[in-house]
């Protein structure tokens, strides 16, 4: 079984490299980083420009609003960056990958490998490892790059250790978001259902959950933890474990569905 997963991983690494997924994931994360850095530098200078052009304009409130939206300090700026990653990056990778597994299955790409002993579990596990890692690592690397650049430009309000922890956590968040998408797509045999449920969860649930007292125990808390660039690490243990349990359960359900299909197809009437 391990050989099957290993060979699938090797194949999927080639897939991400040759179908442009590595490029997409990396450039997307870097693009968001450049965009946020650009917004912060550009928009926070707008009030000064307006003060010159429009005498009597309420510059102070605009300045304060801009500095709230795009803070010129490392922690706050990282928070904005991670929010955009959580929002746009997640959205695009969900839409780029939601149909990978159902499409392969429907197109009959598994028929010949299955004849040679591969199992559905091998394909799904490998996709989760390769695609999840690619997304997670590109977010981790971009987060750290952003941190170093921000430190050089803005006031440093966050330690390296804290940034490193937040980068790892955000990498895991994106890893889980993508893997949940892949597993839901396998479980429900539909990329559309997987995309809708994950986009809903990632984009809207964190804000709703923040209002509720149980919100800090749910996996979506991990996203808001990174958005707020917090450092009370103990508070992420509970939601992280719950996230892990939900992930394992989803994996088991998805793989069980494939196993049942395989068993049924081998039963003779």
């Amino acid at each position, binding site marked *: 079984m391990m050989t099957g997963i290993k060979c699938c991983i090797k*194949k999927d690494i080639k897939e991400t490299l040759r179908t442009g997924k590595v490029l997409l994931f990396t450039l997307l994360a870097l693009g968001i980083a450049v965009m946020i850095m650009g917004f912060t530098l550009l928009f926070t200078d707008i009030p000064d420009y307006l003060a010159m052009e429009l005498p009597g304009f309420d510059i102070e409130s605009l300045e304060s609003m801009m500095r709230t939206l795009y803070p010129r300090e490392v922690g706050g700026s990282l928070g904005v960056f991670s929010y955009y990653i959580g929002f746009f990056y997640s959205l695009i990778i969900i839409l780029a990958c939601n149909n990978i597994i159902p499409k392969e299955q429907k197109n009959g*790409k598994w028929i010949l490998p299955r004849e040679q002993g591969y199992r559905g579990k091998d394909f799904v596990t490998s996709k989760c490892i390769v695609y999840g890692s690619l997304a997670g690592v590109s977010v981790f690397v971009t987060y750290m790059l952003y941190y170093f650049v921000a430190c050089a430009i803005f006031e440093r309000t966050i330690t390296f250790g804290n940034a490193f922890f937040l980068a790892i956590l955000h990498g895991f968040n994106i890893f889980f978001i993508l893997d949940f998408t892949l597993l839901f797509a396998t479980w429900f045999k539909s990329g559309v259902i997987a995309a809708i449920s994950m986009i809903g969860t990632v984009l809207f649930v964190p804000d709703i959950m923040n209002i509720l007292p149980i919100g800090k125990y749910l996996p979506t808390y991990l996203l808001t933890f990174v958005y707020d660039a917090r450092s009370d690490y103990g508070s992420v243990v509970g939601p992280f474990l719950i996230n892990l349990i939900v992930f394992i359960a989803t994996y088991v359900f998805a793989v069980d569905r494939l196993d049942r299909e395989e068993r049924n197809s081998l039963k003779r009437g």
Partner: protein
Amino acid sequence: MVKVDGIRKTFGAHEVLKGVSFEIKEGTIYGLIGKNGAGKTTLMNIMTGLLEANGGTVDMGSSAWGIKNKSSVGYLPDLPNFYDYLTTDEYLDFLLMDSNPVRRNDLLKMVGLSSGLRIRTMSRGMKQRLGIAAVLVNDPDVILLDEPTSALDPAGRADVRNILMKLKAEGKTVILSTHILADMDSICDKAGFLSQGVIVREVDIARSRENASVMIVTFAVQPDLDTLRKYAPNLTVENQQQVKITLDKADRLHSQQSILEGLGKMQQEITSISSKSFSLDDIFQEVCL
């Protein structure tokens, strides 16, 4: 011996297969013939375990179909789909789980493909050959090919036919479906015609080819059939001026000579005489349409 017994399959209210039964000898090529929608692919999917039958059994060799003898059967679907970003050798290595580079090279050689060829850039014929190589990875005893030549040009079809003949020479049992009857005619030992959910006729192609041939005689005017029957008892009237005479299976040459002699004695103007040998197409027209 492959034995398919009473296979039934229903999709909703539509019964596609109503008890399909046939047997195939080891080391032979069996052709499954039927028009589009006759249930050939459904039957193949059932035989390979991709689809569950509503009834009946499939015996693919030593024991009834099951996970144990899975590798003894290879199945190539009509439109095989590959990971097209891989190369030919990478794809076969993937199927072999990186375990046997020698086998990979042998398979590429057998189907006439070079290594390092990106699948995305390959023609349909080349992909079909790669599909056959992929099916042979585990050296199965029984190989099922669904429409292996349907999307190919004449050169591609000839390539596939040659590969199938090689497989037969190696003692493999091959079951193939196609609507290109000329392919069946030239390579199959036996053919089964699938129509209305059952095998309506089975033909031993080699024997039929030896035994059956007909002469088509066209006269300038309507011939005197009573006189003609004296020389050619097995005749069928095609139209007013044309008759079809079936030659004696036991002694085709002599039968042909005596008919020609008789036609000469009749002293009626003949516009054409043509001979027609065994044709799957005729049987297809008769039993499937």
